[in-house]
């Protein structure tokens, strides 16, 4: 069905806000990539370039007291949960004002107050953790939902299996998604799994699953909303496969020569931002002038973020020794 028609189910304001976050994510990550190229950022830079619709779509479908366990290409979700562009850049620059105060880098950030479970490099490790957060909500009888994901490669890990199984056995209020961008670093799907669609993994747990166009923010939003509603209603977990394509290298150092150019060409046409603009145009929610205006706005916000981050202090050496253990005060709230 035509995605603009589908998108009619979504409030105008929500769609416009998603468009804004798509642009903000793109602009922010492009800027981070530029800083990396200039050698200003060290270490890994994993972007969601061309996949922004997934994080923006699902994070927009959540309530503010829900919790997310994002994976490493979910920048839009961090932003929607309230982490500012300035904090993100500070994180990449190792500044004390970043969410981890320089203790960790790039997408390895989290913040319980904003309902974000910090990403752990070890892929799929946060899926069992997400089921535990959902278990806590179920035990306390809270109508809260956890939204957690991993990549196509991450679904090969044992922790994916143990989390999917536990979530379905206990009918936990969690939605588990897979960002299927067809590669795990250089590894194509055929070396990762024998199934045609990642969603088939859900069959092993009698968990309902859905294949979604990951480059259509409206489709991501609506499928997420359905799954979240199911979870909130106590009907248990759902698995969502968001089909997309990794448009950059695994990390910015990687030219990704192993990806056929045609594949990239084909997917370039499905760019989530172009898709969103088409929908907004068709629904009469926005025109080129509006899109440009949003572009200006996010450009300014990112520029301010860079400034904030650059003004921010680096941590001092001795801070290394702080924070290994939590204190009573931190938990007595």
């Amino acid at each position, binding site marked *: 069905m035509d995605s603009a028609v589908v998108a009619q189910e979504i409030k105008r304001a929500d769609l416009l806000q998603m468009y804004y976050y798509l642009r903000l994510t793109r602009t922010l990550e492009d800027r981070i990539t530029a800083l990396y190229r200039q050698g200003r950022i060290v270490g890994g830079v994993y972007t969601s370039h061309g996949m922004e619709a997934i994080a923006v779509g699902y994070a927009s479908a959540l309530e503010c007291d829900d919790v997310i366990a994002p994976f490493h290409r979910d920048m839009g979700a961090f932003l929607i949960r309230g982490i500012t562009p300035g904090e993100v850049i500070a994180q990449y620059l190792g500044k004390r004002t970043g969410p981890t105060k320089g203790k960790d880098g790039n997408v390895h950030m989290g913040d319980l107050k904003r309902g974000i479970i910090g990403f752990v490099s070890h892929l799929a490790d946060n899926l069992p953790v997400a089921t535990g957060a959902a278990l806590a909500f179920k*035990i306390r009888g809270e109508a809260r939902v956890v939204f957690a994901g991993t990549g196509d490669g991450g679904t090969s890990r044992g922790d994916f299996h143990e989390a999917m199984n536990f979530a379905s056995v206990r009918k936990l209020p969690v939605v588990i998604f897979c960002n299927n961008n067809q590669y795990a670093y250089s590894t194509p799907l055929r070396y990762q799994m024998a199934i045609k669609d990642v969603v088939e993994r859900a069959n092993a747990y009698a968990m309902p699953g859905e294949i979604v166009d990951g480059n259509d923010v409206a489709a991501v939003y609506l499928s997420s909303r359905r799954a979240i509603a199911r979870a909130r209603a106590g009907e248990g977990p759902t698995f969502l496969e968001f089909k997309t394509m990794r448009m950059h290298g695994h990390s910015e150092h990687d030219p990704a020569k192993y990806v056929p150019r045609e594949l990239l060409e084909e997917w370039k046409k499905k760019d989530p931002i172009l898709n969103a603009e088409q929908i907004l145009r068709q629904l009469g929610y926005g025109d080129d002038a509006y899109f440009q205006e949003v572009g200006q706005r996010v450009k300014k916000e990112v520029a301010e973020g860079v400034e904030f981050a650059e003004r921010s202090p680096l941590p001092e050496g001795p801070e290394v020794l702080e924070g290994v253990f939590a204190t009573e005060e931190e938990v007595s709230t």
Partner: protein
Amino acid sequence: MTTATATREVTYLEAISQALDEEMTRDERVFLLGEDIGVYGGAFKITEGFLQKYGEWRVLDTPLSESGFVGAAIGAAMMGLRPVVEMQFADFISCAFDQITEVAAKNHYRWGAPVPMVIRAPFGGGVHGGPFHSECPEGWFFHSPGLKLVAPSTPYDAKGLLKAAIRDPNPVIYFEHKFLYRRVKAVLPAEDFIVPIGRAEVKRSGTDITVVTYGAMVHLALEAADVLAKEGIDLEVVDLRTLIPLDKETIFNSVRKTSKAIMLHEDNKTGGIGAEIAALLAEECFGCLDGPILRIAAPDTPVPFSTPLEEYFLPKVVDVVTAARKLAAY
């Protein structure tokens, strides 16, 4: 499930059960998860009756997935609950190693998220369990910053340390020694008490030689001390009780007094906790040492099954006696 009465002697096992029961009653955030802890009451019956008393959402039988349910405990802890995980045997903790060392141990340091949870690990040999039901895994976690480790040797410490662990804002691995479950008994105070994490205890004070140990080996050391007393060798037995953070002060004070030290543990010798304490002494108390720091520990092999092999493998009273005589003569 047994309730505390000031007069009755309780076993080490009952003490653990009491601590869980009292903490679950005191704090509704506390819940249990693990294999066969519900209907069955746990492989060692420590949670017998808990399911009926607290219901299936506070006493969760999990699928056979150590990594999965430890990860789940981490998530629940971050959301404000106080999960207590039961490993059916400490040996299977290897399956959850990644969740414990990479997620639970590092979350607070990395991004400030407290992970207040306890993992109960029934460990140790002397029970004819063989290589996979007798392991002492504490050495691995001793080298994983972000975790606290405790290992009680008496019913009093077992109860007090478990309560302290449950109330601690950090991930704590609670090493309960299977050999002690039904072998040591004591009358416990009726009122609520804890044994603070981070404090060793001198279980026997003496003047000649310090034995630093923990878990089941504490009793071995005390037996050896009685033998040696007859020969005029006066052992001081320091029970670590908490392995991380180490109570350096108590250890150092003892060795400053005796100036001779023996490290005793059931875990494999190489890279064991005894090595760290010996290194600390050689580094920070060198001046007060009047002799080599001896170590008595299991050899560097898995725990063998057959009785004569396991007897050879485990440290014995005679080992402590021999080492102490050697040191006394030094």
